[in-house]
């Protein structure tokens, strides 16, 4: 069965690149431009993995992550946080809120693909 | 000396009371010939007020809690 990935980012060009990468890897891709849209998309159909930016309009990545992890139904869903702010405190905060992995922008596409694969148990 | 505020205020009140009692016009009310208990009125008045002031001061002082 094809794995589903939800991309949450407000930078159109980054979304384009991530969408391209994930589709090329054979995943089914959904896109959300802000925190609220991300939650709606998860409710609609739970993805296997979320690529979650932190600096988002309406609801930031931390809040989204917290909401997702609060729902027991979505425990199996993997969350990879992406941020352009590279401070250690943010990494720690993301992990504490239940993110499975954390990647700093700009990221290496290879590393990202490997990380996603590993989390989805495909490697 | 402990200075519970009320004691000081009571004493000042006694002072003011005394100032009024020993002054015109109150004193003029008793400045008359005539006697109380065989004692001239003014003489009696002054000593009575005087004793009362002392009593009030003693009361204010000795009831303080210190």
């Amino acid at each position, binding site marked *: 069965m094809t794995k589903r990935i939800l991309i949450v980012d*407000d*930078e159109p*060009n*980054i979304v*384009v*690149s*991530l969408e*391209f*990468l994930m589709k*090329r890897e054979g995943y089914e891709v959904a896109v959300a*431009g*802000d925190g609220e*849209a991300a939650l709606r998309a998860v409710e609609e159909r739970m993805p296997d993995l979320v690529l979650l930016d932190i*600096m988002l*309009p*309406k609801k930031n990545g931390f809040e989204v992550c917290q909401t997702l992890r609060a729902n027991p139904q979505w425990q199996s869903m993997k969350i990879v946080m992406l941020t*352009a*702010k*590279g*401070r250690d405190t943010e990494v720690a905060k993301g992990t504490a809120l239940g993110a499975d992995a954390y990647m700093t*922008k*700009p*990221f*290496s*596409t*290879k590393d990202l693909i490997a990380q996603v694969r590993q989390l989805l148990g495909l490697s | *000396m402990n*200075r519970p505020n009320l004691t*000081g205020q009571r*004493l*000042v009140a*006694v*002072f003011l009371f*005394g*100032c009024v009692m*020993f*002054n*015109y016009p109150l*004193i003029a009310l008793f*400045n*008359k*010939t005539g006697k109380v*208990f*065989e*004692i*001239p*009125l*003014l*003489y009696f008045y*002054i*000593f009575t007020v*005087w*004793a009362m*002031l*002392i*009593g009030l*001061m*003693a009361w204010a*002082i000795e009831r*303080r809690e210190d």
Partner: protein
Amino acid sequence: MLQGWVIASVSFAYLGVLFAIAYYGDKRADAGRSLIDNPTIYALSLAVYCTTWTFYGSVGRAASTGIGFLPIYLGPTLMAGLWWFVMLKIIRISKANRITSIADFVSSRYGKSQLLGGLVTVIAVIGIIPYISLQLKAVSNSFTILLHYPDIVMPAKAAAQPLLQDSALYIAMILAAFTILFGTRHLDATERHEGMVAAIAFESVVKLLAFLAVGIFVTYGIFSGFGDIFSRVESVPKLKSLMTVADTGASYGSWWSLTFLSMLSIMFLPRQFQIAVVENVNERHLARATWLFPLYLLIINIFVLPIAVGGLLHFPDGNVDADTFVLTLPMVERQEVLALFVFIGGLSAATGMVIVETIALSTMVCNDLVMPVLLRWKSLRLQEQQDLSGLLLSIRRWAIALILLLGYVYFRAAGEAYALVGIGLISFAAVAQFAPAIIGGIYWKNGTRQGAVAGLLAGFAVWVYTLLLPSFAKSGWLSLDFIKEGLFGMALLRPQQLFGLTGLDEISHSLFWSMLANIGCYVVISLRVQPSVAETGQGTLFVDVFKRTAGTEGSRFWRGSAQVQELLPLISRFLGPERARAAFLAYARRRGLASADALEANPDLVHFAENLLAGAIGGASARVMVASVVKEEPLGIDEVMNILDEASQVRAYSRQIEQKSHELEKATSELRAANERLKELDRMKDDFMSTVTHELRTPLTSIRAFSEILRDDPKIDLLERKKFLAIIVREAERLTRLINQVLDLAKIESGNAEWHTADIDLHEVIEESAAATSSLFSDKRIGLHMALSGNVPTVRADRDRLIQVMLNLLSNAVKFCEAERGRVRVALSVEGGEVRVDVEDNGTGISEADQRTIFEKFRQVGDTMTAKPQGTGLGLPISRQIIEHFGGRLWVSSDLGKGATFSFTLPLNGSGAERREERT
């Protein structure tokens, strides 16, 4: 017949008992088990207020004025109600500053002024010596009268007796010897005399019992009770009038002014100050004294009127002086023992007053008159003497002898004259002059030395002119003309009707004018003169005495440090080596040290030493002496003697200290503020860096991702390849723009930006900007409308920078306008002295909250779900910096949903720009 030797030996026996009590009291004090640490004894010792003037004089006064003797005792009763605040404060201050006398108190309050101490001393001595004469006269008269027992013989005029047969001379000598024994056996740092106080308390009991004995004997022995006496009054019109006071305003006025005068006297008579303040062992004692002392006054006055009436009834022909009724009534009834007891009671009243008053005065004379002069007097070579304590004691002894001698001389001179008889109240009026300086001094910080000096001098001068000189004139020593005609024959200057004021008795008259002059000068001059640092310091110590904790007083305002090795010899010279060493050892022990040598050199130690010395030589001299060893390079005592003048170097020093501490305080608060600013800047910088990082990483993310995609995947079709490359280029441009703007802003903010200021035509700027953005407008098919006023003068600014601002505003307007329906209007106008440019759009508008933040860095507005705004978030902050650089303002006004108008102004003639240029 009472033999002279019987009276004399009973008197000496009584004095012997007194001395034994005093000796025992001192022993107990030395042993640390104070005899007088008892509120009842304190209250009884306060009854030193009742002298022979009370004991004999009250009856005399009652016989002539009836109830008129009472205000003298009602005043203190009322005042006792205020002791809780006023007296307690004076005691607390005096203990903290080791005040030794009322002169020392005034001097200390006003910056330890030697002048004031001396002035108070002089006033006190002049005012009190006649009062001492009065006591001598009373004892001498009562002795003479008793000697003629059972005959009633009024004493001949004192002056008529040969000097060596005058009993008053011997009484004066005996009292002098007695006072010297009591008061100057040793020199104590606290100037307290516990034995003497015990003896005074005992005397108070004796005189009260003696007076009550006469009172009871007269009332119930001669007559049959109060009712009997007062009913006999009815039949004698002259006596009847004594039962009321004249029902006139003047008599009520003098009733009250006497009450007021005695209220002040109970506080400020030197002997009362000595007993109530200096000799006070424990301020808690004041509580009981507040009611017990008035009670004593009441009891001693109960029988005054009956005795007076009894005397007047008994000696109707008036050849017996009413002042002697207390003694003569028992005599005429042949009550030998009672008469002797009365004599002893009178002796008690006299000796108590003389001893305490003389000790108080001698302390003042020594500390505030003689010592300052002696210390200044080089030829005395005081500096060569190692131990000055002996000198101090002998000064006091001589002062005591001299004061009593003066008292006797005045007695001989005045005799029966008016100047002696009326002196009680005249003395009261003299010491009342201390009231403004003291009461003002403990409640009003702004009272100054000059004010106090002026007030005292003025009040004292008025007192001399309106009371003392007239009393001399009435005694025949001066021509009466000056009372009747006024000074130089000017009626307005008649001393007892000054400026035409009539209708008051002489005491009330003098009290009114002297208090008016005194308080007036004190207040007015205090308000006009800036107090010195020393005065301010002492003023604060006195007024705020309850706010300070014990032990820290003084050292706050007067800092300096000195070694024990320097201070100890200094103190030893005045107190004697043993006492000094013992005091230092005790001080060291209190601090948990084994010996005085272990004491640290610090301001507290200096303060302790100064206080110790103040007890011996008064505050003013003590400060000067201590200052001599406290300095960095110790001055020789020689030099100190030269610079005693008002302790000038002390003042300069403490002013310097104060100034330095002010500067330090200021520097500290500046440093704190700077630190806060730095922290704030640091926080802002941190936020800024974090934001910049984010803004840089975002385009980099796209660039890297697409570059890797293109590198790793050669099979991507051409169309997609082109699309990805275009993104890379766009993001690279975005990155460049961002870097440029960050640098630009940094340059402007740091003041390193280059400005090419010239006369700019804004028409041209706006049109060029419109041309540059025309493609943006046409792309979205948004209309641009220009409303440019024709006659706009040039402004001084940087052309390229203004174009930068315009481009930013125009592109912002386009960005927030809906395609096709959007309209942008640019207006140029002149308003006041400014040129104004408005860029108005009909786009989404900006909420009020956003209006406040859009000028901050990296704050962008817009719903990024639909369209992420292009731009860096730095355009508006940079634009605002540019406009403000040229002296203008940039702001926005908008209603959400109805478009926004960005406006800026620039000063017309460019003066703003010039100004900014000069500063950069």
